[in-house]
């Protein structure tokens, strides 16, 4: 299967089809950036989970995937942004087993394990921005 080159990816997340689109475009970008299959799969899975969180808690938002450089390091960052209800206690949301929407409670801690860096900026009523980075080895 041939793929057209992908620049930075920005996908509006409003339905389950958008989840598939976001992870597929993110995968292409990571492949193009020289990541190996295992890393590409971890990035695609993380995108899928972050997009699901948007649907579940905020109903809509966006996923942006782009390449990042820091010093001699090169990688991709995944930003999940929504204007939903926000996360009251970010520390609690990152504990294994915690969930408010009756899911398995694995979402954020599990997603963090797939990536190298993981940052949440959120407050009740002001939406959520999650930035996750994976560096190329």
């Amino acid at each position: 299967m041939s793929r057209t080159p992908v620049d930075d990816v920005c996908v509006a997340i409003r339905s389950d089809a958008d989840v598939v689109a976001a992870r597929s475009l993110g995968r292409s970008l990571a492949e193009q950036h020289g990541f190996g299959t295992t890393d590409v799969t971890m990035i695609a899975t993380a995108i899928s989970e972050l997009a699901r969180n948007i649907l579940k808690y905020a109903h809509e938002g966006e996923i942006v995937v782009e390449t990042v450089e820091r010093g001699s390091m090169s990688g991709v960052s995944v930003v999940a942004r929504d204007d939903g209800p926000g996360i009251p206690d970010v520390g609690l949301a990152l504990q294994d087993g915690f969930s408010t929407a009756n899911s398995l409670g694995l979402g954020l801690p599990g997603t963090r394990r797939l990536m190298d860096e993981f940052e949440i900026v959120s407050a009740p009523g002001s939406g959520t921005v999650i930035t996750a980075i994976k560096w190329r080895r």
Partner: protein
Amino acid sequence: MPVPILKQGDCLIASIQSALTDADLLELRDELSERVGRYRSKGVIIDVTVLDVLDSFASRTLRTMAEMIRLRGAETVIVGIQPEVAFSMVQLGLSLDGVTTVLDLEEGLAHLDRSRRARVAHAGG
């Protein structure tokens, strides 16, 4: 995109051809549960070889599917989970506890064949 379901003897084989949305997965679940009854199937193989991501929803739905099919009297075997997909599932904390998973379609058919022989031996003894 709907998943083709083949009937082979007393087995059904659902061969996933491309990435599935949540709605596609739920449709597959309901379709398999219905066809197990229509064809009086004893075994179901779900081939996920082409799936490059099995996230929390997909894992949960596969578990639900296997349990529904078990309640309908048939056994489910998931085949073709790729190594990097397996790795990501473990990192994410997902499992398919209680669901039989084997390497590929060939192993899946062999597994169901052993189950069939065990059933026949049990009925005969």
